């Protein structure tokens, strides 16, 4: 245990005062915890919005809410889930795990790290406060297309909230890159890093590349609305489609920002429970890199229906389909890792296997959408909604839950209740399919997205979907219960190496991980690393 450093004389253990510990923190673990608590909170707020949506759509006709409020709910649900739940939880995981995985004492720029976190609650106060303002919140969709999004006053708040989130994300990403490139313990070569670390290195690059572009896009919205510019006004020589181009230049890499860290997590968990090193480590790393590269040249697949020139339709169609190749490599390698392994099915593994299967379904529906002529039909229908919920809920969100179960023992020092974890898993995985699978049919039959009322022909599938929705929402309360029980009440202490097959530096430090780890760089033994021997 040479490198399980707990000694302090220069900087001491956790500070006593609440404010000092949590608000003035420079500790990657505490900041990681803050991120995770914040994103869980946002997950439930965004989830509440989704419940309103599904309640209204339970039956045809207007039931519960006004159309404008319905539109506020769809808009806010997306903004909160994307920027408040998924992204910050990945950053929280990065904060907790990357220093532990590369043998660093902390993040490279700890104070900036704290700032990155503390911007987030304020950004969301700003955004959510619009719901209580006289004019109401933003209701033009999370994509903020002008001219619709420019109606009303809330757009200024939304834009500034997006600016704040962007600043936070960029600083967070810079920090992660500097940590990975500069803080690795001697001997932790780039090609020995866990896949999770690799996935975040590339994600951080994507973030720095595209968050400023989003900032630029919303700044143009702001000036169009308040300072008489004409970027998106055809009468002045501009073009509303220009906004879509800039937005999706950000937007498509953004969807990979929400899935690459998930790929990393799954690539940690499957080898542990299959008790085999990951199959094709290098291929996994290169696949992530090529997905990231391709993500910059496919953005207009979101715009097939706006009337692009033919050449653009064809280019973006083929470029998009190209992404299926590295994605296929990843799925193949996960399956091959499990192949012939001595597998056990603890909750993290269950979520990971569900991820592989259900994310792939989302990938297939994506492939269908990538066919430009077919997308003319599918665009803006529930088929798209089904697609991105398969990749985002059973993809990104499932990976986050898998990660939570996988590393909770390390974070808290306690084991969670395996029984309740499994109940959570089965309840979630069944309900999520009841919720989203029928939406494929609805979309193919022509039900538009973002609409509070619909033709009676769609009634049955909507009712099934809503039942699945409430069920899935309720299942997440089990998750909350399991986490709270594990952290505060569980009697079962976790071993340092909490999972029998787990490899990697994070399992060499005590559970719970002490306030400071690796004050002195650890000595790296290749056979201790999950992917240390990349030669075979």
């Amino acid at each position: 245990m040479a490198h399980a450093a707990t000694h302090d004389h220069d900087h001491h253990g956790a500070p006593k005062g609440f404010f000092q510990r949590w608000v003035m923190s420079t500790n990657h673990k505490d900041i990681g915890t803050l991120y995770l608590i914040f994103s869980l909170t946002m997950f439930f707020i965004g989830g509440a919005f989704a419940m309103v949506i599904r309640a209204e759509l339970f039956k045809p006709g207007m039931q519960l809410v006004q159309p404008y409020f319905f539109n506020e709910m769809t808009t806010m649900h997306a903004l909160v889930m994307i920027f408040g739940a998924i992204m910050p939880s990945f950053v929280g995981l990065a904060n907790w795990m990357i220093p532990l995985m590369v043998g660093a004492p902390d993040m490279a720029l700890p104070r900036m790290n704290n700032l990155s976190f503390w911007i987030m609650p304020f950004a969301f106060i700003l955004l959510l406060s619009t719901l209580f303002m006289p004019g109401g919140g933003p209701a033009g969709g999370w994509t903020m297309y002008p001219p619709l999004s420019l109606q009303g006053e809330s757009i200024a708040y939304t834009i500034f909230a997006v600016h704040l989130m962007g600043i936070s994300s960029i600083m967070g990403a810079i920090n992660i890159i500097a940590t990975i490139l500069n803080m690795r313990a001697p001997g932790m070569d780039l090609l020995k890093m866990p896949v999770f670390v690799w996935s975040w290195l590339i994600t951080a690059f994507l973030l720095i590349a595209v968050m400023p572009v989003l900032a630029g896009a919303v700044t143009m919205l702001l000036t169009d609305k308040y300072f008489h510019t004409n970027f998106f006004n055809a009468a002045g020589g501009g073009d509303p489609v220009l906004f879509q181009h800039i937005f999706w230049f950000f937007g498509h890499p953004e969807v990979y920002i929400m899935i690459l860290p998930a790929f990393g997590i799954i690539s940690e968990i499957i080898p542990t429970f299959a008790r085999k090193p990951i199959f094709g480590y290098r291929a996994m790393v290169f696949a992530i890199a090529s997905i990231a590269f391709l993500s910059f040249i496919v953005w207009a697949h979101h715009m097939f229906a706006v009337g692009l020139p033919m050449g653009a339709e064809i280019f973006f169609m083929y470029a998009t389909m190209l992404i299926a190749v590295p994605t296929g490599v990843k799925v193949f390698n996960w399956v091959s890792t499990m192949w012939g392994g001595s597998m056990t099915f603890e909750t993290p593994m269950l979520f990971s296997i569900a991820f592989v299967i259900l994310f792939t379904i989302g990938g297939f529906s994506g492939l269908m959408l990538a066919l430009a002529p077919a997308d003319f039909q599918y665009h803006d229908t529930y088929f798209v909604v089904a697609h991105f919920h398969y990749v985002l809920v059973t993809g990104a969100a499932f990976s986050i839950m898998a990660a939570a179960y996988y590393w909770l023992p390390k974070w808290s020092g306690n084991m969670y209740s395996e029984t309740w974890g499994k109940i959570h898993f089965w309840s979630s995985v069944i309900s999520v399919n009841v919720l989203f699978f029928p939406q494929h049919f609805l979309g193919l039959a022509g039900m538009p997205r973002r609409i509070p009322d619909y033709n009676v022909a769609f009634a049955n599938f909507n009712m099934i979907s809503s039942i699945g929705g409430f069920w899935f929402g309720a299942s997440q309360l089990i998750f909350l219960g399991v986490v709270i029980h594990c952290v505060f009440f569980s009697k079962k202490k976790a071993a340092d190496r909490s999972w029998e097959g787990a490899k990697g530096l994070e399992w060499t430090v005590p559970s719970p991980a002490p306030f400071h780890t690796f004050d002195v760089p650890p000595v790296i033994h290749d056979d201790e690393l999950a992917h240390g021997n990349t030669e075979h």
Partner: protein
Amino acid sequence: MGHQQHDVYFVPSKSYWPIVAAVSMFVTVFGAAHWLNAQPGQASFGEPLFWVGIAMILGMFFGWFRSVINESLSGSYNGQVDRSFRMGMMWFIFSEVMFFGAFFGALFYARLFAVPWLGGEGHGVLTHQFLWEGYNASWGASGGGGPQKIGGAFQTIPAWGLPLLNTLILLSSGVTITIAHHALKAGHRRTLLIGLGATVLLGCLFLWFQAHEYAEAYEHFNLTLGSGVYGATFFMLTGFHGMHVTLGTIMLAIIWVRCAKGHFSKDDHFGFEAVAWYWHFVDVVWLALFLFVYVL
């Protein structure tokens, strides 16, 4: 436990500056959003709140940087921290490049696609026929105001007057800061201060001419932010660039003071280099602006 190795890693102590920064940013944008939505002539708490926020941000920068400079001077930082700072600055500049990229993208799109299509080119024939008949698309004074000539007729700024002068000014400032950097590395204090001082002055001169150009555009050329998509791209690109020059000049001035106080040594002067990189970045952006906004 290897006590002898203890200072291999450095982790900074806790600090209240981050939360101050977060609160200041919130106050600023909350004020700004209220201000923007205020009815004309109606008192709004947004405006004062915005200025309070700006003041808090300035105070925060002052305090935060002071504590970092003090830590640096007291020798707490090691080579690893220095590398982290360098990477941080490099990636920050990259993010700035992408921010400008969004506006350059808007410029190219408007020039190459949006405006010609409104004029009936390419696949815009029908749009032209039904919506904007008679619009004779071209870039600049004759077509950049769009089909409805929003903002009224205007003239554009000729490239070979003030913009050329400003190009020369920024290019020479790139030279002077390099001279200063070499002087710093060679330990020639006097040359360092003169070179850096000259860079600050050139930065100010640039801004002065830029302000002059804006005044001329508004008063004599009727070229405003509202002059169709031409005015929008022109002022947003040059305006954001100008803001960056302003920031760069302020940072250079601070670095000048720090040089005068003898803060930097021959091989330990990250603060200087960070600002120099930033200045070169601003310089390169200007060259692109000069080419694509003024000349072409």
